[in-house]
């Protein structure tokens, strides 16, 4: 880390009490105008939607330029935030009776950090895509969508209240949906896009319910007011638990946590840069971000925290286990993402706020790197099946090492960023007393190391397993972003280490006790264990796929059943389609039955009765005069007799 940055950290820490006074005027202006950050990509989106067709491939420059602007501004804001306190500005968005719903923005530590992460990754992906998407028909559309997504994501992270968060929360979903379905003519892409939207929507509904309930409890959607209400004890414990869990359901949907994770691997139907941006670095982390942003609420309920931790830990090991056997390069990475997100959830659920956010950051970098690198591989070999690859190390001289860096980082090899953040998580889990979860996480770490290196070895080591021609390294427009990310994947961990200081952690939690401590002290053996399992995993992978001294089906042949269970992702999709989808279809058919026979039948019977009565009546009109007279006279007789018996003399 640069010494200047460190100075800033220190200054900010020491200067907190008088930061507003101390801060230079220009600095505050940066933060005051932070709302402009999301607007750059929005402009890019609008511009490209309207004029993209004419710009063709030049669209890329528009997109890159605007995101660069965002990135620069975000960085400035981040630097400001080191020295200035949280800034929040709001205006009335909608009035309901005496309730005023506001919209605005807030720059606190988490937001500022997220702004940089998002705009940075976005910028890099924009740049990368210039090369990756070359020759695509709908090139401008792609950039437009990227712009839309970036806008939404940036909007999401500077939202000062739940409603606005929800607003952008859905918009990022839209961006994700559009980009997954970018190759709309592919049936798989169509299905995947639909699935992604619907699965996340299920979570969103949870979030919506939770947020509305919270609103009626706290009287506001504002984060700070909600926290104040929680702190003041204005909300009952059960309600806190309930709303927290409901909101967590939203996070589960977005972050691909079990049981709503199935969309995320399928989302790999989208172009690879998209996977890197949305389904690895930013959007999927939104769930984690949300839990982090609402951390004081969760912290107030042990049950809620426990739920988050359990789901997180379970997802971590569950997804990792699936990742062990997948054959598609992007799917392996996708399951790894799910698993890593589970880690973050585990961290948050174990009160490890800093650990969660820290891992979010490092993960963003190394997973983006991995995806971009994978994209580069795919770009080179035009396949995603790792069984068909191999021996690419020699051909892809840049991509290979960068991929290796990413793999090392994610596996938690010491000195790489992933090592530090994962370590923090394990410590947090241990310190919070979640022993079982801790060990699950350790096993998951082992799995991670194993499958990531399995991937690495299958792709890069050995000889090509299929005929590969014209394999060449990607252009520099693609490799450069990867290099940047590679650097970050290594160094990002050093902002918060037990060895050199926990700058990030301390900065994140300053001024806010509800977030816990900047650093949690844990026993030293945890670090050793973590290192050991990851090395073990790497070793095993090397044995099986690198050196091939262990047969690849050594394990699978022994446990064919569990292999196929894993390969088929625990049959979760099949289970859903058997239960939920069939259920919905059944209800629909039942209602259709109701519609046809009851609703329509009712109508038909009424009209039938009326026309039958008409027919009956007209039958009486048989043309016989005497019938007519009879009817008239009998009518008279009836009236008279009734009169005689009721109103008349006989009464």
């Amino acid at each position: 880390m640069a010494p200047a940055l460190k100075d800033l950290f220190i200054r900010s820490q020491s200067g907190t009490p008088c930061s507003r006074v101390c801060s230079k005027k220009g600095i505050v202006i940066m933060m005051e105008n932070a709302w402009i950050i999301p607007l750059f990509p929005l402009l890019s989106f609008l511009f490209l939607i309207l004029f993209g067709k004419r710009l063709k491939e030049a669209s890329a420059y528009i997109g890159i330029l605007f995101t660069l602007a965002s990135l620069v501004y975000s960085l400035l804001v981040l630097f400001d935030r080191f020295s200035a306190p949280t800034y929040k500005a709001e205006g009335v968005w909608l009035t309901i009776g005496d309730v005023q719903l506001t919209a605005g923005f807030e720059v606190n530590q988490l937001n500022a950090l997220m702004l940089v992460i998002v705009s940075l990754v976005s910028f890099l992906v924009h740049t990368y895509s210039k090369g990756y998407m070359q020759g695509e028909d709908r090139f401008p559309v792609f950039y437009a969508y990227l712009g839309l997504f970036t806008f939404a994501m940036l909007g999401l992270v500077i939202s000062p209240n739940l409603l606005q968060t929800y607003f952008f929360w859905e918009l990022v979903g839209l961006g994700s949906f559009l980009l997954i379905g970018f190759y709309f003519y592919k049936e798989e892409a169509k299905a995947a896009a639909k699935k992604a939207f619907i699965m996340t929507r299920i979570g969103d509904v949870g979030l919506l319910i939770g947020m509305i309930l919270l609103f009626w409890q706290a009287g506001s959607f504002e984060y700070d007011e909600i926290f104040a209400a929680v702190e003041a004890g204005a909300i009952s414990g059960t309600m806190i638990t309930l709303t927290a869990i409901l909101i967590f359901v939203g996070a589960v949907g977005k972050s691909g946590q079990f049981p709503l994770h199935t969309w995320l691997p399928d989302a790999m139907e989208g172009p690879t840069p998209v996977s890197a941006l949305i389904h690895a670095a930013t959007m999927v982390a939104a769930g984690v971000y949300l839990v982090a942003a609402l951390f004081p609420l969760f912290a107030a309920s042990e049950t809620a925290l426990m739920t988050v931790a359990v789901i997180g830990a379970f997802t971590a090991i569950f997804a990792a286990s699936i990742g062990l056997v997948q054959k598609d390069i992007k799917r392996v990475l996708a399951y790894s993402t799910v698993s890593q997100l589970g880690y973050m959830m585990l961290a948050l659920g174990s009160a490890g706020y800093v650990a969660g956010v820290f891992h979010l950051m490092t993960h963003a970098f190394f997973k983006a790197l991995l995806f971009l690198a994978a994209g580069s591989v795919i770009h080179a070999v035009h396949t995603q099946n790792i069984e068909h690859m191999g021996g690419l190390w020699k051909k892809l001289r840049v991509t290979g090492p960068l991929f290796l860096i990413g793999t090392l980082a994610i596996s938690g090899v010491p000195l790489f960023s992933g090592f530090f953040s994962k370590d923090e998580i394990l410590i947090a889990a241990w310190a919070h007393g979640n022993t079982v979860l801790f060990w699950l996480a350790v096993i998951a770490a082992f799995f991670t190391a194993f499958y990531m290196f399995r991937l690495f070895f299958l792709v890069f080591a050995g000889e090509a397993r299929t005929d590969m021609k014209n394999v060449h390294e990607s252009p520099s427009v693609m490799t450069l972003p990867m290099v940047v990310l590679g650097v970050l994947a290594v160094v990002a961990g050093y902002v918060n280490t037990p060895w050199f200081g926990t700058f990030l952690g301390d900065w994140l939690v300053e001024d806010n006790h509800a977030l816990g401590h900047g650093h949690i002290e844990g026993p030293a053996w945890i670090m050793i264990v973590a290192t050991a399992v990851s090395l073990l995993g790497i070793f095993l992978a090397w044995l099986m796929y690198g050196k091939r001294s262990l047969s690849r089906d050594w394990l699978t042949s022994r446990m064919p059943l569990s292999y196929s269970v894993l390969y088929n992702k625990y049959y979760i999709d099949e289970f859903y389609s058997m239960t939920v989808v069939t259920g919905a279809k059944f209800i629909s058919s039942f209602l259709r039955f109701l519609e046809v026979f009851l609703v329509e039948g009712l109508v038909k019977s009424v009209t039938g009765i009326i026309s039958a009565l008409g027919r009956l009546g007209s039958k009486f009109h048989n043309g016989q005069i005497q019938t007519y007279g009879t009817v008239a006279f009998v009518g008279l007789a009836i009236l008279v007799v009734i009169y005689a018996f009721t109103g008349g003399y006989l009464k």
Partner: protein
Amino acid sequence: MNLAYFLSILVFSPLLGVLVLSFLPRTQESLIKTVGFLATLPALVLSLIAYFQDRAGAGLEQLNEKVSWIQFGDSGQLGNLFSIDYELGLDGFSLIMIVLTAVLSTLAAIASIHIKKEWKGYFMLFLLLEVGMLGVFAAENLILFFIFFEITLIPTFFLIGKWGYYEKENAAYSFLIYNGLGSAVLLIVIMVLFARTGTANIDALMAAMNADNPQLVAPISENMKMGMLIALLIAFGVKLPIFPLHSWMVRVHVQAPPSIVMLHAGVLLKIGAFGLIRFGMGIFPEQFQSLAVWLAVLGVVNLLYGAFLAFVQTDFKMVLAYSSISHMGIVLIGLGALNEAGIQGAIFQVVSHGLIAALLFFLVGVFYERFQTSSIQNLGGLAKGMPITAGFLLAGAMASLGLPGMSGFVSEFMAFLGLFKEMPILAASGTIGIIMTAVYLLRAVLGITYGKAHRDFAGITDMKKFEFVPVLVLVGLIVLIGVYPSVLSEPLTSTLETIMLGIGG
């Protein structure tokens, strides 16, 4: 703004078009279409003037008009009793509805370019329909309201029955009988109120019905009030439509020409909600409160019923029809909540669904014009041949499923916000509808736009210029409301206050 008879001119301005049209030869297709389109403009301009004047702070009261019209019985003996005035007026809610009507009418007139035959008759009826719709919202007394309400019935019948698709006459009859019954029930209520209180003016009725010692011609018992409210619910429930009174509406949506469905789904259905809010809540606040739970339940039923049925439809128009039912459930949910959020949500939904349904049906018209089908099966891969249409279709679907940033979200959100306060469990079960909405809409829209192209798109042009205008206007309005809902909520403030005052909230 101080123009005398401003509202009358606004309401009856389309008649000018009818007049001009009647002198045109019936073969002059483009001339007739132009005149038909132009005739919708005065109302649009005037309604916008009214809107902006209102926003600028000029009171809407000065637009009120009153001319004595019918006097039943002997005026010397009865005084003002049993007299019906011709009185028009606006409040925030009706102002918004008028603007919506005027906008949609103009757009539907553009959409009517696809009409293939007898343009003259078509546009005359079309303009007549517009008069009816505008009048409904401007009427200040129940009888006048009813008159305009019925006036909408007749042109719609013909427009469906003559210019619709294969089963048009069936649909037209279905429309007529259901709505006829609905308006019949409505008429009973109106007449009972009129006969018993001697007045039909809405404000006077509100005052008379809610006074402690009402001065009535004949007594009205509590049971009668309840009965009348239920009757109102049925009457407007047919229009809205509320399950199980909806089957006519599905038929109309499928069989009527798209331009008419734009108006039908956009405005005519909304008369039901308008009536419920204006009269149901206004005149029978106490009874409304005791019925609110049932309204909310009906709302959830509507929402889910429509959603699940839309899920299994094979024709896109059917999907949209059931989606309308489902969305009207949101209106009921908001009304059932009976608090500011809910009612405002209901009103927002009224407007929002009007715009969204109009947009979607316009798009249906666009591709129906080119492919003569609206079956989802037959339309796969539309994005290949008509990317712009497909894109707007997707936008429409997103608006419809309540994507934030578009109007549908604001209304849905507020309705649920309201209901969660009063009946959280019911509201929670209603949220299944939100998921189902996404499910069926994506199924349908992606089925049409995405996937392999099922047909040859050679020779198919994407949207033409004139088709852009309505779509852009509608999308623009949808986004405007979604992003800056105050354009709607601010004019509504006073109306809402009045309502809340009535129900004692």
